[in-house]
């Protein structure tokens, strides 16, 4: 299968602090890839660098056959969507307005409405709350808006940073069920998650991030058989 995203020797960080130490990473046209590992080792930094929020120090990123342009807005317009950590909603706007902002780069109104219907069928709660401001929503509902807003871009690849962060176990299950459905529709998804047990059921590729580099990579079956390595990393 041809690769949608291909990264070679990516180095990046914040100001003078180097975080990512030469990452090689690729994502297929469809399916869910999970980047796991303890906090503070560069998982979010990798997603932000791919999205263009952080500058690439060196290395190359090829997306859908072409090198990525500089700048987050330009990358978003190419179909590279990031659902950032902590939702980062437009809190003064309603649920529907947030979703419409997700489709900002699109022009076909009918297609946008169809995507919105898809989002509402995936998260019926958002339909109930569509004219409510997002600052009045619960944590789980906010996460749904964040993911829904990402879906509204109808991009080629969606990266989601810690979809379970700060949510109750029951809500986490609902969120992952929805993500599983999205992935099953043949879309490429990259999920960052501290705890691999949450993504083990839905993802098909795993990368363990440690100290700004991948310490281990493998499939679902390999993840199960290599339980000891993962456990020692996560301190379980």
């Amino acid at each position: 299968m041809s690769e949608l995203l291909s990264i070679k020797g990516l180095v990046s960080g914040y100001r003078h602090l180097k975080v990512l130490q030469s990452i090689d990473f690729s994502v297929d046209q469809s399916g869910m890839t999970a980047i796991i590992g303890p906090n503070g080792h560069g998982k979010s930094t990798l997603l932000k660098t791919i999205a263009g929020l952080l500058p690439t120090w060196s290395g190359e990123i090829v997306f859908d056959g072409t090198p990525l342009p500089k700048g987050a807005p330009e990358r978003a317009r190419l179909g590279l969507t990031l659902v950032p950590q902590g939702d980062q909603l437009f809190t003064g706007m309603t649920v529907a307005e947030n979703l419409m902002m997700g489709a900002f780069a699109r022009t076909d109104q009918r297609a946008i409405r169809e995507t919105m219907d898809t989002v509402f069928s995936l998260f019926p709660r958002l339909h109930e709350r569509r004219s409510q401001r997002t600052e009045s929503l619960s944590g789980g509902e906010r996460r749904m808006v964040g993911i829904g807003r990402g879906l509204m871009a109808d991009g080629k690849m969606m990266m989601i940073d810690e979809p379970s962060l700060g949510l109750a176990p029951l809500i986490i299950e609902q969120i992952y069920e929805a993500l599983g459905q999205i992935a099953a529709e043949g879309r490429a998804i990259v999920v960052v998650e501290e705890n691999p047990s949450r993504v083990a059921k839905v993802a098909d590729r795993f990368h363990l991030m440690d100290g700004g580099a991948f310490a281990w990579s493998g499939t679902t079956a390999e993840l199960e058989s290599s339980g000891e390595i993962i456990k020692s990393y996560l301190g379980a």
Partner: protein
Amino acid sequence: MDAIIQILVSGLTLGAMYALGAVGLALTFGTMRMFNMAHGVFMTIGAYAAFSTVNYSGAPLIIALLMGILAGGLIGAIMHLLVVQFMLETEDFEINILVATVGVGILLQDFLLKVYGGYPFSQPVQIDGIFRIGGVAVAYQSVVILVLATVLISALAWALTRTKFGMAIRATAMNREAAMLMGVKTSRTYLQVLIIAGMLAGAAGILISSLSTLSPEMGQNPAVRAFVICVVAGLGSVTGAGIAAIALGLFEAAIQYYFGVRYGLPLMLALVVVVLIWRPSGLFGKQEVVRS
């Protein structure tokens, strides 16, 4: 009864002018975290542009008005392209831009002094005459000010809430990184914001000069009031700035009527101190809440 009508008329006139100045300033701060210290000079430039249009071409007043508004927008665009865009990513942007815009303001004000001299011209862009409501004389110009301010601010409110371009501005104001992730080119949004703020300032300048006279430093006093209004409303709250402007206009008119014109500004500032002691983040501002 006449006293109340008198206060309402002059208060709303003052408030409408303050609102035009303050809304642009609030929009700039709300979207870019930028205190535009040259905002007052933008008003002056609008006023002089309208004055020159009438003086040198004899164009109709409506054309002169549009030229003044356009000149305000143009100077906003020029300042973004020559100064602001290069400072956006710098460390301590908020302080840097404050100092830089003070410099731009001084430069432009001296430029106006060089070109027009210090003579207090009267603004030709206004409508003479009065009519009476009860025993109160109302100038047609007051009506012009009210109508123009209402039209411009309503147009801005409509654009910000109903158009894609306005949604992009609000999204950038609420969360810049998230807006970029949606594909909003925020540097272009900033340019648009400075053009809009400049146009509103230009309109405010024309109206303010129609009640007094033109001079290179005429923008200073209204700019101070616009800043005060933004602080009282809560920095960056555009709707709040509009409401606070009307309220402070009425308050100032009442003070002027009962105590005399010279007490207007001092008592307004005293009110501001009281408001800020009671609500440090302003009437419509959000308290900074730390969420884990």
